[in-house]
């Protein structure tokens, strides 16, 4: 237990240092945060226009898009503001700089995750919070729905983190895995921001169980709307499952890793 607290304290310290270091270039930092928030508005706008053009689909109204994008961007921002290093795993593995992480006495995955920081992810966090607050007002959310929203943020973030780790762990299986990792993760990320109401039948099954894109935004919005306990249990169980599975995949991948001859240094 003490070691877990130590690891979390280390992750917290590394994240704060990363943010402080990035904020040194103040103008660039602010431009990234604000720019990303504006950038995210485009997806919201597109799907709202889509809903206005084709009408409500399976009960999905324009306000639900706000919730969908809110969950998606918030968990993206949370995962990659703390763990941007996960995205760099293919680079670390192919360049051989993964060696220096293995020599660190800290938890390997945590050390990799906190090795990098991208200021624009804070823009995602800000945008996600604004969208979910707005969604709460638009739907006149009750106390129970607000509590559920917090719980769902934890579930969606766990799913997102799990898929990010699993996809990037593919780096251990291929010689130059950047393209495969990029393509696989893109398939998950893009789909998670698509209009949830249009996913029915086989597509819904596929994007919940095989590629869990709908666990990130679509199911949480439907849970809040319908107060569906079955969907809540499914989302919770799958998010835990994905997280545990991703850790296993990562650990298995590390065992396959062969050290390179490159000499790299890191602090």
């Amino acid at each position, binding site marked *: 237990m003490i070691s877990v607290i130590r690891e979390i304290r280390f992750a917290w310290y590394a994240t704060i240092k990363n943010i402080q270091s990035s904020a040194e270039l103040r103008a660039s930092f602010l431009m990234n945060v604000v720019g990303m928030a504006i950038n995210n508005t485009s997806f919201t706008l597109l799907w709202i*226009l889509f809903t206005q053009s084709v009408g409500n*689909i399976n009960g999905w109204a324009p306000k639900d898009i706000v919730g969908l994008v809110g969950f998606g961007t918030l968990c993206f921002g949370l995962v990659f503001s703390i763990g941007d290093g996960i995205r760099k795993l293919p680079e670390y593995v192919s360049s051989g700089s993964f060696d220096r992480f293995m020599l660190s006495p800290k938890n390997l995955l945590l050390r990799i995750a906190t090795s990098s920081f991208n200021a624009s992810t804070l823009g995602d966090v800000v945008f996600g919070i604004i969208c979910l607050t707005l969604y709460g007002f638009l739907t006149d959310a009750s106390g129970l729905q607000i509590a559920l929203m917090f719980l769902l943020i934890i579930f969606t973030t766990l799913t997102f983190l799990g898929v990010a780790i699993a996809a990037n762990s593919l780096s251990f299986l291929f010689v130059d895995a950047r393209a495969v990792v990029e393509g696989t993760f893109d398939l998950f990320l893009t789909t998670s921001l698509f209009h949830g109401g249009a996913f029915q039948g086989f597509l819904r099954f596929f994007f919940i169980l095989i590629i869990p894109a709908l666990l990130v935004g679509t199911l949480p919005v439907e849970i809040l709307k319908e107060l569906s306990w079955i969907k809540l249990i499914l989302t919770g169980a799958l998010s835990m499952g994905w997280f545990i599975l991703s850790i296993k995949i990562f650990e298995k991948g590390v065992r396959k890793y062969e050290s390179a001859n490159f000499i790299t240094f890191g602090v």
Partner: protein
Amino acid sequence: MKELRLANKIVTTQIKDRIHYPGRLVADTLANIGRCGILLLLYWYVFNLREGTIQNTTFLLVAWSMFFYFAFSVLRLRDIGKTIMEDVRSGTVEILLNKPISYILYRAWWQLGGGLYSFLVIGIIGTILLTTLIGIPDTMMNLTFALSLAAVFILGIVLSLILYSIVGMLAFWIEEIRPIFWMVDKSVMILGGSYLPIALFPDIMYKLAIWSPFGASQFVTHTMYPSWTREWYSFVGIQLFWIAILGMFTYFLFQKAKQKLSVNGG
């Protein structure tokens, strides 16, 4: 003649490189399945819900329009902005400026060559798949369509390269151009008819898509609609207008950028 030989050399080298390292083709294919493929399935479902027609448009037209957008995006012309930014940041621009070639043209050919292989493979496979699965609209079965498509496609490439080069050149003045890149890129994405086809645009947005350079760079997505055969020449005119205006702006910006360049030795 020399310029053409150089361009040919750059494009051929890039294509050979992509064939030898097919990683990008894999990434592009997966990204296209994720974006275009799933979007088409969603639209197919939505059109079926609405009995085959939404705002007097059929799924057949919408599907081809969206496919054209995503196939065009495989060329990755947008990356020229990031490449220029990297050149400025890393100092590579100094080496390239000292060579007896035009830097901007060199980067443009480089970018085009890098995306051509994926574009051809995904374009051909996608066309065969779409033709087999949903068929070809009548509006795409005539010579006017083929010729005008070729014209707006080439002009669209030139306009996209100019647009993103301008964004890239801002790196001479601003340290972080990514937020500007996102804004331009999302304007192109929205007004180009990516996730929402132009046939479903509200009136004001449709006008913006036609008259802004962002929408004009993606006129390939307009070519399959019935009104195209009557209006294609005005679309070509709009593209030529923007190429002339923004081309001149790029030229002056580049002259200013060269004066702004500071080389740090070490």
